[in-house]
């Protein structure tokens, strides 16, 4: 009951925001002309993308070393040309079914400033540009980390991850002590 009440309140809030947003006129008409270079990849059957700006390279998933006593979204660490990088599994955030890790999996190495992490992808599709106007904010039903990690969704149902947030999110800092 409590949950349904909460939901109904939330629905009300969402509906209010939507009404408010629809009531506003677009501020900058030039946004349509601007583009964004993205790297599309697959997680399960869903299409995801990251901004090419933050991508350092794509690397075959090899020699994954699993770390014990870590949260499940941290798959482990890989050695890419001498550099040790953590690999996170974005599927865990979006409740997507795992498929098992093979050599066909790729690690997309993203960086922001000096911080670099690997994101596991099932398959890397390609890089291309998308118009910014095509991007819509994430749906309001997403809350918590789901909402925070997304930058937007295109009309082609391409989900754009927000690398800056992923890299800088405090929740991704792992500090656990095992006795």
């Amino acid at each position, binding site marked *: 009951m409590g949950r349904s009440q909460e939901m109904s309140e939330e629905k009300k809030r969402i509906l209010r925001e939507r009404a408010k947003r629809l009531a506003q006129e677009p501020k900058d008409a030039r946004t349509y002309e601007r583009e964004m*270079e993205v*790297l599309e990849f697959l997680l399960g059957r869903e299409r995801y993308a990251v901004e*090419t*700006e933050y*991508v*350092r*390279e*794509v*690397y*075959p998933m090899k020699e994954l070393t699993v770390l014990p006593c870590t949260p499940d979204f941290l798959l482990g660490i890989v050695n890419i040309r001498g550099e040790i990088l953590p690999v996170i599994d974005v599927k865990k955030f979006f409740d997507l079914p795992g498929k098992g890790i093979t050599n*066909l999996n*790729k690690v997309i190495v993203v960086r922001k400033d000096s911080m670099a992490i690997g994101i596991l992808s099932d398959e*890397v599709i*390609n*890089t291309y540009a998308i118009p910014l106007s095509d991007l819509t904010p994430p749906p309001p039903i997403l809350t918590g980390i789901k909402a925070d990690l997304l930058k937007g969704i295109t009309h082609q149902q391409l989900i754009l991850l927000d690398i800056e947030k992923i890299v800088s999110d405090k929740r991704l800092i792992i500090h656990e002590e095992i006795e």
Partner: protein
Amino acid sequence: MKNMTLGKKLLTGGLLAVAIPIIIVGIVSVYQASKNTYKDKQDDMTIISESLAGSLETTMYEQLFVIKNISYSNSVIAAAEKMEKEGEKKSRHEIALAEKELIKIKNAEGDRLSSVNIVDRNGIFFASSDRKTFKGTDISKREYFINALKGKPSAGSVVVSATTGRVVCTSAAPVYSSNGKDITGVVIIALELRFFSDISQKMKIGKGGYIFIVDKNGLYITHPVKEKILKESIFQTKGMEDVSELIRQGKKGNREYTVEGIRRVASVAPVNITGWSVVSVVPVDELYAPARFTRNVIISVGTIFLLLASVFFYLFSRSLTRPMGEVVDAAQKIASGDLSLNISSPDRHDEIGRLIHAFNEMVRSLKEKIQVAERIAANDLTADVMPSSERDALGNALATMVDTMRKQIQEIVEGVNILATSGNEIMASVTQLTSGAAETSTAVTETTTTVEEVKQTAEVSNQKARHVVELGQKTAEIAKLGLKSIEDTIAGISRIKEQTEAIADMVVRLSEQSQAIGEIITTVSDIAEQSNLLAVNASIEAAKAGEHGKGFAVVAQEIKSLADQSKQATALIRTILFDVQKAISSSVMATEQGNKAVEAGVKLSTQAGESIEALAESVTEAANAAIQIAASNQQQLAGMDQVVSAMENIRDASIETAGSAKQTERAAHDLHNLGQKLQEMVSRYKI
């Protein structure tokens, strides 16, 4: 005694207890009383006799005294003397004087004296108190006159008066002359005997007793029977000898005698002066009268008390025996098994009341037992018997009986059920048996027919057997030919086998080569993948380079498309190779199967050869067997005849069997019915 009822016993005992003392006391007291009264009465009689005798004696003495006085009287002496001397005529004066004297005396004595007289020495009356009567009477012959003349006065002579004819008692005394020497006359007094009679009659003893007086000669002076007086003598009376003896001796005493059948007691007392005896007589019976009275009293009182006692004991015994009788009747009824009784129990608290109560209790208890028994009889065994006590033999026996019956009935029920089931089964079996017997009978008849047919068939088979012998010989020849062709076939198949093995080797080699091709394709696919990745990275780098990287980006895109194409090509090759490998596998399998088929063919051919060989032998054997069959058929024909006759016997037997099976069926039916009846009977029991 043993057969007497209790009431009679009580009655008898009580009456005896009352009667015996009464009888003893009665006998003793009667005996005593009779003894005492007998003695008393005798004493009384003696006293009476003696007192009468005494008084008579006194009277006689008085008479003597009186007569002596008269004789001494002057006028009498003078008259007698004158008369003696001068005769009657001259002494008239003196006689007159004497007569006056005599009349005076007579009058003084009254009626007691009948007369006073003076007689002369010749016995002639010359003076008398009653002159007219007695004058001139002569009494010279009388004893008392003679005695008086001798000087002896006497009294008590009873005589019949010469003048009057009446019986009188005379006394006589001599009259002496004045000088007192000569006897001049005799004075005679006649006493009326009536006087004695009166006395003796007055002194009656009891009812039948009486008194009489006899003189010394035994003549009756007084007696109740007047005719006897002075006419009969007691000495002549028969039966009175004892009494007569006493009288004769002048003694006193008591004697018993019997005259005319009556026993009497006589008490004798003598009167000495006259020689008389006074005898008082009483019948013995009268003596015993008081004793008889006592006896009668005792008898009547005893009888009354006996009656009262018998009534009392009768009532008492009735009060005992009636309820006892009821109880006895009840006990007899119970003994005869009749319990429909109820002893009316008046409110008695003695032993009989308790007996009746105990009887009713017993009957009640028995009725309970009987109810249980009736329930048992009505097949109800659910009854629980509660014994009245531990020693209640009947109750315990009933309880044990019910228990035992229950168990037995249960066993019987089980047995009957088994029996009924068995009966059913037996009946079913017997019915089957009967139908089977009938069938057997039919079958036997059929069999007999069949045997006839078999006989004919045997003849046919005999012919056939000969035919088989011929055929067998032909077949053996054909089998030899078959053997040869089989050997040829085996040789051909062996050649096919060698060639097939060669094909298999080649196919295996082909498979190994296709495996190598697969590995190569994987390598190529890997390379394409890496190229693709490189292309992506290149495009990323190109993007980073901005405007300067645009051309490189195009190149990178081209490389990527090449990599994609090579990926697709390898995928295609892989598909084809996969098909090829499948085909190779199939051919490997096919060659192996071919190999096996060839081996099987060799084996089969060999077997066929062996079979044909065996067939040839068999046919030969069959031919031999057919010969034997022909021989045995002959024997069979002979056997068949025997079988036919045996079948006849069997048919008769089976008909009998069918008949007895029918009987058995009836019996089984009866058994079945019996089982069902038993079940019905047993089902009536409630356990």
